[in-house]
């Protein structure tokens, strides 16, 4: 008998801290054809997940072909030299496998999940798509229409245009100013020959990293990978086109009228750092300490300036060097002054330095990051998805160390990370939107620092104590998954700053 509504369902899940980490040393090799392979045994389920990170994103596209990487990702589900599109889909279904892909700014990620005894067939299909797709001419315009539908869907959310306009302003002069999906104009203008040439250029083993995670013995899986992905010809792997940040515009705070959208300030500044650099980990945690929670320095700074601080976050968007950025995303009320929001951001950023209010909150966010790392590592499909922004070019052993990296950082790394953040304040570009805002632009400079840091709220002085104390406590995460009767969608790592990411469910 069905229990009637309303009803509170309370769900508690407990993960075994540390167990997954201790038992799963990774194997890393580079095949003769240039493919980097990372194998991570994980025996919780009789499943294998295969994730391929391809260096193919807007950072690699010619400007006139904006959206080509995402369009190509779709087209790779349309058939190969040995499979029609229907055969491709049917073969995946026959295995009961999950096959999908996501395009982000500097890479495309392909994921496949299958029962371990079907792993070879699943990886063979994935390799077939990546290396032997035909980009059938008869499917090209159909797939273009699907991508245009996807763009229409996204544009139905007012946030999409707000975020696209922000990116165009804040990242002007760099490839990431362009939207991952492209625009109606660029998508309409892309020819099959352009996409084919791009495919041949980018989809070579040397531009890829294969991460296999699941229930296998490393030697057996390596042999399997060689039989499937190892057969691809080496090809020529080319680096991404060089990118650089132009000088900050004189008027770096733009305002724009946006009907039907809540008032919002988006701001960004570049951080010249590799996405796998330990300082990037430190920056992520410092930004959490600066912006998350009731007593966060950002919230305190906003409130002290009379800005209602309902929803404001700071985060690091990791991309290939030099395109990583810190992003502020603040929902404000119509009466609030965007310059005050930026002033508050500057105060919060400065509070990440030694002795600052954010540093005093650090221990708990280190603990949280460690916990997040353990939970992420416990989910074989999601782990590469959640870490794909820092895999390309990362040193050997990075994925092994990453979940507990924050807990192991020395004080000097936190100091260096904080200094990078403070330095970035000189390069801020921001855009404020709302129904009552007028189009325009003005100059914003970070305010002069006050001599004394703002006093900490009492609750911030809790046990965290120091920013160089004993962090080697339990590790942790912030990933989530869910089981529902509806279709599956992977969670994004975080809402923060994902103004350009594309989570695309091309497969079924």
């Amino acid at each position, binding site marked *: 008998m069905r229990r009637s509504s309303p009803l509170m369902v309370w769900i*508690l899940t407990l993960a075994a801290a540390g167990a997954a980490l201790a038992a799963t040393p990774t194997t890393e090799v580079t095949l003769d054809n240039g493919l980097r392979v990372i194998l991570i045994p994980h025996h919780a389920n009789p499943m294998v997940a295969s994730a391929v990170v391809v260096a193919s994103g807007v950072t690699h596209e010619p400007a006139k072909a904006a959206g080509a990487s995402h369009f190509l990702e779709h087209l790779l589900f349309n058939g190969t030299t040995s499979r029609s599109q229907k055969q491709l889909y049917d073969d995946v279904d026959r295995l009961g496998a999950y096959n999908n892909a996501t395009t982000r700014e500097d890479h495309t990620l392909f994921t496949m999940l299958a029962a371990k005894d079907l792993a070879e067939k699943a990886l063979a299909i994935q390799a077939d798509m990546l290396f032997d797709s035909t980009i059938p001419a008869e499917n090209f315009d159909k797939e273009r229409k699907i991508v245009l539908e996807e763009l229409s869907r996204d544009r139905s959310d007012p946030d999409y245009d707000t975020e696209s306009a922000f990116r165009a302003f804040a990242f002007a002069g760099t490839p990431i100013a362009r939207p991952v999906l492209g625009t109606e104009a660029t998508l309409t203008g892309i020819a099959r020959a352009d996409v084919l040439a791009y495919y041949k250029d980018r989809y070579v083993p040397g531009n890829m990293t294969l991460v296999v995670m699941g229930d296998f013995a490393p030697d057996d899986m390596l042999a399997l990978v060689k039989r499937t992905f190892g057969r691809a010809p080496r090809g020529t792997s080319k680096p991404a086109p060089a990118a650089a940040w132009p000088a900050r515009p004189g008027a770096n705070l733009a305002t724009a009228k946006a009907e039907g959208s*809540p008032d919002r300030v988006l701001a960004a500044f570049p951080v010249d750092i590799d996405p796998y650099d330990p300082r990037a980990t430190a920056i992520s945690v410092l930004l959490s300490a600066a912006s998350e929670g009731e007593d966060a320095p950002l919230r305190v700074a906003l409130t002290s300036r009379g800005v209602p601080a309902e929803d404001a976050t700071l985060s690091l968007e990791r991309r290939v060097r030099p395109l990583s950025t810190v992003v502020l995303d603040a929902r404000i009320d119509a009466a609030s002054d965007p310059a005050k929001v930026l002033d508050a951001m500057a105060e919060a950023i400065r509070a990440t330095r030694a002795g600052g209010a954010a540093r005093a909150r650090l221990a708990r966010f280190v603990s949280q990051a460690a916990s997040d790392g353990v939970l992420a590592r416990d989910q074989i499909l999601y782990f590469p998805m959640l870490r794909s922004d820092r895999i390309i070019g990362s040193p050997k052993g990075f994925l092994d160390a990453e979940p507990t990296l924050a807990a192991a950082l020395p004080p000097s790394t936190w100091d260096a990370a904080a200094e990078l953040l403070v330095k970035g304040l000189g390069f801020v570009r921001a855009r404020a939107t709302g129904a009552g805002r007028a189009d325009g632009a003005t100059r914003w400079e970070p305010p002069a620092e006050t001599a004394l840091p703002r006093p900490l709220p009492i609750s911030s002085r809790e046990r965290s104590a120091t920013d160089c104390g004993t962090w080697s406590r339990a590790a942790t995460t912030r990933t989530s998954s869910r089981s529902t009767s509806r279709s599956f969608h992977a969670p994004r790592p975080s809402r923060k700053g994902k103004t350009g990411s594309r989570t695309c469910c091309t497969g079924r």
Partner: protein
Amino acid sequence: MIRATEVHEAAALEARLSAIGARIKGVDDPSVPFDDYYTTPEFSWLRAEAPATAWRETVSLLAEMIRFPKIDAAGVDEAKKTMARLVAKRDGSARETAAERLDALLAPGHPLTHRVLGTSASVASIGLDDLVRFQKAFATGGRMIVTVAGPVATSDVVAALSADLGGLSAGDPPPSAPPVPRSAVPGVDEATLGKPQAAIALGTVIEFKSEDRPALVVAVAMLSDRLAFDLRETRGLAYSVDSTLRPWGDAWRWDLQMGTRPENIAEAVDGLRQGASAFREAEIRPEDVARTINAVRGRALMRRMTRISLAYEAGMEVMRGEAAGDERRMLEALALVSADDVKRVASRYLDPARLSRVVVH
């Protein structure tokens, strides 16, 4: 955002949860695509994840949030602002609007059709006293289901829950929801939001014999694949199109949904209807059934790989009055479904003439 309790200020509670590596989630994240699984008229929920080493304190903190929330005027005002923003976003969504209007066509006035997020007016009218009363009436033992998954002894968990939540009053039993109407004449509704993409929602309430459920699950999955291959992969009319079967009150819902650009609406609606009609007449090949069963089972098993998913599934089974393991047994029963079964249930239950239709453009 974590809010204060009578024991902890919000900041202190957040700090403690972070320090032990625990996460508690109580609302969907509107910035995550399709993170709408828990914004449902059927239940409210809290979800906690923590390292096993911290399970006991996590239970205590969660119980504290349920039993002793600090509900004050400032917190209510802040929550109302957040709610107003969510309502505005929902009101601007073609997909959400189409789903709501279809619900209203199928079961006018039924509690399942009430807006979970409310309306701008209803949110504005909620006062402090209302919320205090609501908390007292609803945070009771008789309305609560707790499911736990993880490496902790059952007896320890039961002891902890007894200690921390055993003091809750049983409260009044949940009111019985009225039955969902079965014989509604198919309705049609349309709305204009002026969005770049229109939403099409077709659906009907169905009843079937419980022994037919596995075959119906397979039939709907096959129909969904065929619609996707025709409307998306052949004609390029949609980014997402599917057919679903789901429980709805004391009955079930069969739905077809699709997003498409406004210029495609007529072709899309026709394609959905034609596709559903053609499926009833089509040859059902055993190899297609076998493939679909593998796909359905694979997706279901994928969703059961994590502890949080297992806990969710167990909670849903209890709430729906099913025995523990019923969902797993249903998946096993799929293996017995034949092509004849699929043909029979498609013909008997999946009648496109019964579908109500909503288009929001």
